[in-house]
């Protein structure tokens, strides 16, 4: 009796499941060749925004650093040629960062954002000190409608 239940009935059932999945779309991806689109609010590697005219938005106010629970942000202020404040040095230690997104929340100038990039691995610790230049370069190409949304949001 037992034999009939476990072999004769269950075996084809199992094969059937396998067979069924052969014809379905696979769940896995060929990761390095195929990347996944992250959820819109995913918090990955940071990037720094610029104004439309190309100047940096960040004014080195220090609020991101103040809100950072991991104390991952370091900055030094400086003066631009026309007397404005800017960040001479701006670094995030990605090894300390917990990707909480508080820095993005705190920023009054809408300068820092957490992007969608999630590939961090490297073979030395120094390269995890993420500098201002890297963060500015990391800024994603914005889709036009997103920019409009952001502008509208800024008005309110």
């Amino acid at each position, binding site marked *: 009796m037992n034999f009939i239940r476990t072999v004769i009935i269950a075996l084809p059932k199992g094969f059937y499941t396998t067979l069924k999945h052969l014809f379905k779309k696979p769940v896995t991806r060929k990761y390095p060749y195929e990347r996944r689109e992250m959820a819109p609010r995913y918090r990955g590697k940071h990037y720094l925004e610029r104004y439309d005219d190309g100047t940096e938005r960040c*004014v*080195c*106010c*220090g*609020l991101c*650093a*103040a809100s950072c629970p991991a104390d991952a942000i370091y900055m*030094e*202020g*400086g*003066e631009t040629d*026309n*007397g*404005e*404040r800017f960040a001479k040095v701006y670094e995030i230690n990605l090894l300390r960062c917990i990707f909480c997104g508080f820095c993005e929340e705190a920023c*009054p*100038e809408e300068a820092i954002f957490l992007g969608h990039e999630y590939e961090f691995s490297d073979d030395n610790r120094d390269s995890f000190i993420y500098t201002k230049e890297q963060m500015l370069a990391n800024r994603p190409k914005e889709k036009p409608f997103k920019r409009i949304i952001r502008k509208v949001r800024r008005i309110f």
Partner: protein
Amino acid sequence: MSSADDNKVTLTIDGREVTVPRGMTVLEAAKSIGIEIPTFCWHPKLKPVGACRMCYVEIEKMPKLAVSCATEAMPGMVVHTDSDLVKQGRRAVLEFILLNHPLDCPTCDKGGECDLQDLTFAHGIDDSQFDFNKYRFIRDKKSTFDDYRLGPEIIRNQNRCILCYKCVRSNKEVFGEYDLGAFQRGNITEIDTGPGQQVDSIYSGNLVEICPVGALTNTDWRYNIRVWKTQKVNSICQYCADGCNLTLWKDRQKIYRATSRRNDAIDEGWICNRGRYGYQIANAEGRLTVPLIKRGERQENATWDEAIELIARRFKEIKDKKGGVCIGGLAYPGLDSASLYAFSKLFRTILNSNNVDFRIDYKMLPEEPGDLYTQITSRKFSIAGIENSDVVLVIGSNLINEHPITNLRVRKVVTQKGAKLYTLNPFATKSGDISTDEIIYRAGTVEALINGLCVSIVEQKLASDTVDASKLATRVEPNTVAQAAKISGVEADRIVGLAQALGEAKHITLITGELLSTSITRDAITAAIMNLALLCGMAENGQIGFLSKYANSKGAEKLGVMPLLSDSLIAEMKTLWGGYPEQKGLGADRMILSAKKEEIDALFVMGSDPMLCYPDGQFVREGIEKLDFLVVADLFETRTTQMADVVLPLSSIAEMSGDFVNLEGTVQHFDQAIKPLGQSMPGYDICNKIASALKEPLFESVARMQPDIMRLLLREENPEIQRELREVKTSVEQASGEYTVPLFVVDQAHHFAHLTERSKSLSAFCSEAHLELSPSMAEKLHAETGTLIRVESEVGKVILPVIISEHIDNDVAVVTRNFSANPVNDLQMRKQRVDYVRLTRVEEK
């Protein structure tokens, strides 16, 4: 509970009854019981103006809200500080203040410590009913915001200003400066300087500190760091003997600014720019970080061990051959007490020599410990005590430059309490604008003038009866007012007038400064002043301040960093150390003289630059060149370190903890802010290393040594005042030949000793030595500001740019010292009381 006492009033604040002195405002009454009322324009040390209306309270039976900072507390008042009406009033006031405010907190340097931020957060609403464009000041067109320089270090952003007028008020009321004002009115009111003026007074940094918002900021702090990232360290200013209390703001190994730390006994919350910007020397370029040893012609980097080994070997050789008397030590009196003590102990116990001194800028030091001098200086002098006086007499001091904060106290008692100020100086100073009489005597005749005053006091029968005044005429010379007037060049009736004021005064503060203390006739002047003090009864009703100059001069005196000490101090040292060298020691002047005669072979200079500071540069150079072995410990490369065989890097005051004794004798502790730079070391560690290499360590740890130091510092020497008039005979030197203009070598307000040149902010105020002349003198030379003038004395010459003085009106040459590029000490002669110079224009080719 209405009190019978007329000087008290009782009122009710928030349901609590409080009794306060009459004349107090409602705000202060509330503060006294711990009720906080928000304010912008109120400041404890300024008169109320009621400009901001933030301090609204509701007072029953008054029709409208009242400004508590300008409303006097009256008996029976019932005050509410937290009613709905008050809250509504505050909200409205904030809305008005924010009308034109740019709300640029992220870029504003005040962000995080701004009163407007805090109060808006606490009492404001987050919206505004006004929706028109904000009014914008933009003075500087290249900028997108107002960014206007009012002075070398102060930047104004008018858009942030809330028009509390604290800056303008403190500038006028407290500092007596009129270079800032409020112009225009309404929306476009502007805080600005008068035409062609700059905010560059020695007190100007306080305006930034007093500004409740970020309208005034200073360049050193600007954009560098946010306030919440810094740590505060308690410190004491090292740039004069006032001993103002400071807070250093540091992050990691860098100091970002210094602010005042209010101490009502000393500074009342104000500091001068030297204190505010002088911290920059710690992080300045060019600090010495490793020991250097001279090999051949060059000084090369070495390790501490090599340097100490060399010093010990050479000192030992010299000591064994000729005895400790052949080694001398000069210490900078702006070092901490522990270093000075270790220095003295090193010489006295290990090297067996009494040749230690700190008086690096005195001409011809006296041989013996001045017994009269001790009688005067061991008496209590306090800065706060100046407020009890009805007459303040300043002799031989450009007080604003020498002691900026003592000067503020004098200003306060004169302008707010109605005291009279008399100044006796060889040239006019800024104090003249508030003096009842500013007496200018002929250079080098101050004793004659004081004698004249004494005689006049006796003649007017105003002399105190604690002293036998009848002998005066036989003891002093000149002994008539007419003669004194003739010698000193002061009109006789002004002498009589001053004598009358002194005789009638109830409490006198007498202050003497550098122009007397460094003079070679110091003893005669001291005796003359003692006579005057006795005749006016100052011993009972008054105080005499022989103000010491450096941050720790008083400490150095008490710790015995001098060759000849009083017997009681020697006894004390014997008990502490179990021994004391027998031979008499040499003072700074004599050490250099002996070096020149090759009687002193080695010199250890700690922290000072005699080549630049000591009167008679030529003399010092010759002395130092003859030395066999010169060790210099300093922060920077100086003229003296360039000649040294071994140079040791010294730590700055910010890099250690320790204490200073200010001019009143108060011992004040400062904390360590940052780690010693490079391999530099505090003075006490250097002395200890040398001592260990020679024989045995001076101490196990500084903390263990502290009780000994405190024992000396807190020791009171109490010599009886001898109530007897002294002999004071005046001898007058005349100018001879072609050198006819009296020369005065003084400190510039923004420069102190050889150190502050390295501070970037301070050199923005003043970066080179100059020659200050009266307008008439300048005209004679056809000189304008900036014209180069050759100043020649019998022994040297320098070329200096002219500035035309606002005060000086007689024919004197006032030059600023201690700039390494222009060693004006070359002009001075060490044996001459007044140096005379010749001025000629440098012709442009």
